[in-house]
């Protein structure tokens, strides 16, 4: 019996194993770090992420490799997404560090460990080739994030947000699991590639499968935060401590994109006409409600939350345009445009929340729109950075957000959904209003608060680089687009 046992190849999972080992080490080391600033914990966490990125890069073969009895897959898309993920988390932690160190009631060391564990969960999600691996990664990420939202124990707002997030998240996980069990019932396997094979052979109960698909899409929609599964987003973004909001608003989006690809494209590609219909509804609703509700917000975290909803809707447009009338030749282009959109959004959103953190200081959150009034007088440089971010989010040429929207719209038009493209442009125009309002506040209003910006040098430098990246990627988007396209071509 035991002679049949195959010892798995650990190399494809090396980045995950490394991050897990280091998370354990850091958890223990942090117990003996007494300083308020937690410099050692911070440094170790950053080194871990850098090491993880290095291992991901070095072990990347460009081939599709399966391991752990085909439960885990390592391909170019996974490697690329993991590299983006590591980079995002590194930047997030640099921004978050000052805020965490200043707040007394915040559990400090745990923040870093939870970030690492959430990152691990996301990496497992990105590399999942089995519905249970996917679920494992998802839960690992979600549970860490629930705890992170509640890290500021004395804040009722944060606790409430964590509670809401946890209850709704548990519900969504339940929906997802239900969908998974349906897929298992219909195809007799949980392995994503085998699900695809079973579908290709055609001997499956379509009714059960479509029924399960509804639940899967609902679970995905919750994790992406698209309408009508978006209710948690504003509350959680608003209630969570800003560094945690920054984290939730960036890295998990990449993992959620991977989840969409793994489940819907790798697994259920044959049902594309079915899920495209569902995603289309979700996308249009998200763009409408996200953009309209954002106008009414006075809190910038909440505004960015609704903006995130609309962006996720826009990203889904790319997923909708893959297969037209049974013709899958548009698929790669459409999906790579979605991936590009996602990466561009993450870069921009990190900079946006980074700005909020930059203005925050001990005892002051800077999360109201009014706090951005007259930023130009306090710091012309960072006002211009914020402007770049806002213009990019609005999709104004020539920033990276414009090209992201452009690529997706191209895919939509190529798929023949003219009305969808027009709707998307219209909603983007509505969205431009509230982004430009921030610019107006910064440049044309008098500051309410003249305190000089107190962030550390590293944060300022990194935030500048981040803002410049948004601008420069707008000038040279081809490389990133090309990377996304290649990753998807080599992985699907």
């Amino acid at each position, binding site marked *: 019996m*035991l*002679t049949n*046992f195959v*010892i798995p190849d650990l190399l494809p999972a090396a980045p995950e194993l490394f991050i897990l080992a280091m998370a*354990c080490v850091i958890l*223990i080391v942090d*117990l003996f770090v007494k300083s308020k600033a937690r410099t050692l914990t911070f440094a170790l966490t950053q080194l871990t992420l850098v090491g993880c990125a290095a291992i991901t890069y070095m072990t990347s073969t460009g081939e599709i490799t399966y391991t752990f009895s085909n439960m885990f897959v390592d391909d170019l898309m996974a490697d690329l997404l993991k590299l983006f993920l590591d980079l995002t988390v590194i930047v997030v932690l640099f921004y978050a560090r000052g805020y965490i160190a200043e707040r007394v009631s915040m559990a400090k060391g745990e923040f870093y460990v939870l970030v690492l564990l959430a990152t691990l969960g996301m990496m497992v999600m990105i590399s999942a080739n089995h519905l249970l691996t996917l679920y494992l990664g998802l839960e690992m990420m979600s549970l860490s994030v629930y705890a992170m939202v509640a890290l500021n124990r004395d804040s009722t707002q944060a606790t409430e947000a964590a509670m809401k997030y946890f209850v709704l998240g548990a519900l969504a996980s339940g929906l997802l699991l239900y969908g998974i069990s349906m897929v298992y019932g219909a195809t007799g396997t949980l392995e994503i590639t085998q699900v695809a094979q079973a579908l290709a052979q055609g001997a499956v109960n379509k009714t059960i499968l479509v029924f399960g698909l509804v639940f899967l899409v609902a679970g995905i929609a919750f994790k992406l935060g698209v309408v009508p599964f978006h209710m948690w987003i504003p509350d959680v973004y608003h209630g969570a401590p800003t560094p945690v909001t920054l984290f939730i608003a960036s890295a998990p989006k990449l993992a959620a994109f991977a989840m969409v690809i793994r489940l819907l494209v790798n697994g259920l590609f044959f049902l594309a006409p079915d899920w495209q219909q569902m995603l289309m509804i979700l996308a249009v609703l998200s763009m409408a409600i996200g953009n309209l509700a954002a106008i009414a917000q006075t809190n910038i975290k909440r505004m960015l939350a609704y903006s995130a909803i609309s962006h996720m809707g826009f990203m889904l447009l790319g997923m909708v345009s893959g297969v037209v009338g049974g013709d899958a030749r548009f698929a790669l282009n459409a999906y790579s445009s979605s991936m590009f959109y996602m990466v561009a959004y993450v870069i921009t959103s990190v900079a946006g929340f980074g700005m909020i953190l930059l203005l925050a200081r001990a005892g002051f959150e800077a999360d109201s729109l009014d706090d951005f009034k007259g930023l130009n007088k306090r710091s012309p440089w960072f006002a211009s950075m914020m402007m770049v971010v806002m213009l990019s989010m609005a999709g104004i040429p020539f920033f990276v957000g414009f090209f992201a929207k452009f690529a997706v719209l191209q895919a939509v038009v190529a798929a023949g959904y003219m009305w969808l493209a027009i709707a998307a442009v219209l909603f983007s125009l509505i969205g431009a209003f509230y982004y430009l309002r921030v610019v107006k506040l910064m440049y044309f209003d008098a500051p309410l608060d003249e305190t000089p910006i107190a962030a550390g040098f590293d944060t300022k430098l990194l935030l500048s680089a981040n803002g410049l990246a948004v601008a420069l990627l707008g000038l040279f988007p081809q490389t990133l687009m090309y990377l996304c396209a290649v990753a998807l071509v080599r992985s699907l």
Partner: protein
Amino acid sequence: MLENYFPILLFILVGIAIGVLPIVLGWLIAPNRPDAEKLSPYECGFEAFEDARMKFDVRYYLIAILFILFDLEIAFLFPWATIFKEIVNTEAVKWFGFAEMMVFIAILVVGYIYAWVKGALEWE
């Protein structure tokens, strides 16, 4: 295979019967003359104040959560321990089989140390 479990089912039923019959018997044989004083909750002779189902220390929850973690861990150890001799005697998987469980335990120990240092195991 399953018929081996039939005596167990019977035994459980007998156990339940032994749990129920004496109470029924006591109910029938023993006197039953309740009065308000006799039925009041025992509180050293005082009138009972407050509800007895009161708030209790959060540490009981903590113990319960830690227990679930450790008990699950043991549940995972059971099948491994049962075939450990075979693992030792199969050269191909010997070290892998051992190392894997040690890693599993090591992760548990990390959590255990964390709980210890954070004071979750204190009971003042």
